[in-house]
Each structure stands twice: as structure tokens, then as C-alpha cells.
């Protein structure tokens, strides 16, 4: 074994403490700029996760466990739920939190497994576009939904929920 640097084998000169400024800044965790974002993302996953447990468990309970379960789900069922602003708000918050939680999780997985820069950028681009489209679409659907649909002669359709007959007459 040959050594060109005598200091490397002469600890008598004293060994500097680790992280004493000799480390290339690119290897340092602090000051990289994305630190606060990653911290916020980490915290968001835990807070949104807690909220989603309540939001999704109640969603599954009312839609699949109560009443006739899976067989009750049709246009009238959705219309009946969204006639109540509480369920509109419930589904809106659930949509946003679930999509942001899921998108951040997928981002983490892409960062872990896609090693080539181009692959990573491309996959994350597809992910972010898909998420933006789904969040926008879902939000518009909740806010522009019209439960009491009528045919061309002004008669209520058969599939509308019962309360439409009281409202429209």
C-alpha cells in the first residue's frame, strides 16, 4: 500500500471533527433549499393521513355498510347525498386530501426507483398533470352537479331522487 499523503497516516496532527466544514455543500442536508418543503410534505402526510382515515371510513360506512350497501349506489343515491352541503364539503375535502396525499406518495416512490434524471422528470410530469386534471375534474363535478334533470318537455327524469318532485313540482 502506497500513500501519497503523509497526513492520512499520521493522526498525530489531529483529526478534524466530522462536519467541520470540509464537506462539500452538495452533501449537506441543510441549505439545500428543498429542506423546508420536504419537512412540510412529511408533516402533511401525517396530518392528511389522520383526516383521511375519518373521511374514508365514514365514506365506506355510509356507501357500502349502511342500507342496501353496494346495490343502493346509483345516480339517485349520489344526487341525494350531494343535495346536502355537508356531503358536498365532505367529498370535496376527501378528494383534495386523498389526491395530494397520493400524489406526494407517488412522487416519493418515483424519486426512489427512477434513477435516470429524464425518466424521473418525465414520470413526475405525467403524475402532476394527471393529478391536476383529476382534482379539477372532481371539484367541478361536485360544484356543477344538477340532481333534478328534466327531459326536453320539462318532465323530471325517472332516475332523479324523490325530493326533486317537491322542489320542481
Amino acid at each position, binding site marked *: 500500500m502506497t500513500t501519497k499523503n503523509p497526513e492520512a497516516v499520521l493522526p498525530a496532527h489531529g483529526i478534524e471533527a466530522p462536519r467541520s466544514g470540509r464537506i462539500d455543500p452538495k452533501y449537506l442536508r441543510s441549505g439545500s433549499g428543498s429542506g423546508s418543503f420536504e419537512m412540510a410534505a412529511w408533516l402533511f402526510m401525517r396530518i392528511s393521513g389522520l383526516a383521511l382515515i375519518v373521511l374514508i371510513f365514514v365514506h365506506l360506512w355510509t356507501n357500502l355498510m349502511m342500507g342496501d350497501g353496494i346495490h343502493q349506489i346509483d345516480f339517485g343515491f*349520489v344526487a341525494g347525498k350531494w343535495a346536502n352541503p355537508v356531503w358536498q364539503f365532505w367529498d370535496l375535502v376527501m378528494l383534495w386530501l386523498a389526491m395530494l396525499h397520493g400524489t406526494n406518495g407517488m412522487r416519493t416512490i418515483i424519486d426512489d426507483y427512477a434513477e435516470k434524471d429524464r425518466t424521473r422528470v418525465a414520470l413526475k410530469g405525467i403524475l402532476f398533470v394527471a393529478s391536476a386534471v383529476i382534482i379539477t375534474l372532481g371539484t367541478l363535478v361536485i360544484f356543477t352537479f344538477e340532481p333534478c334533470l328534466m327531459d326536453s318537455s320539462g318532465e323530471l327524469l325517472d332516475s332523479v331522487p324523490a325530493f326533486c318532485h317537491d322542489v320542481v313540482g
Partner: protein
Amino acid sequence: MTQTKTGGTLYRGREGMWSWVVHRISGVGIFFFLLVHVLDTSLVRVSPEAYDAVIGAYKNPIMIVGEIGLVGGIVFHAFNGLRIILVDFWKQGTRYHRQLLWGVVGLWVITMAAFTVRHLMLFFQGA
């Protein structure tokens, strides 16, 4: 010193690793279902017939089994997520992370037994 026989180079992180693996796989599965689920719900803006036709697919026997799998993934992800929060924020979390995982598995078995029985009963009643 006794020689230990190693099974290749597989990282054997035991409970901690396997819960991480299942958490990832269930998360990815739930994410893709969520994309589909927002799209199928959006059909209420197309027409009642379109929505009822597509949502009718969820009442097919194969999809009933799929729904049990989906809820199984959601329930595991939810309970294991609580375990992760405890490991992160509770002082004793890292010490008891294995016991917490067996708690997650136990609660998952109980929840899924109840859900599966109820879901299948409702399916056969309405079929």
C-alpha cells in the same frame, strides 16, 4: 462463534421492512383506484344512464371480490399509517414498533372479517 447460513443478499428487515413494502404497494393500488373512481363518479355530469351503467360494473361478482381487496388495502394503509405516526411521535414508538405492527395486523383481520361478511351478505341479498 457459530456460522450463520445466509439466504443470499436479500435485505431481511423483518417486520419493519415488510410493513414498509405492504404500505407502498397498498398506497400505489389505492392511488390508481382513486383516479378511476373520480372518473366514474364524474359520469353523473354526463347522464344518469351513463353513471348507472358504469357503476353497475361494481356490482359484478368479480368486482365484489375486488372491493374486498381494495378495502383490505385501504384498512391496512390506514392502520399502518397510525403505527407510523406513533413510531414518529410517541417516545416509546420505536421500541414497540413490532408489537404495534402485530396490533395493526390483528385489527386488520377483525375489521376485514366484519367488512367481508357484511359486504357479501348485502351482495347476495340484492343479487
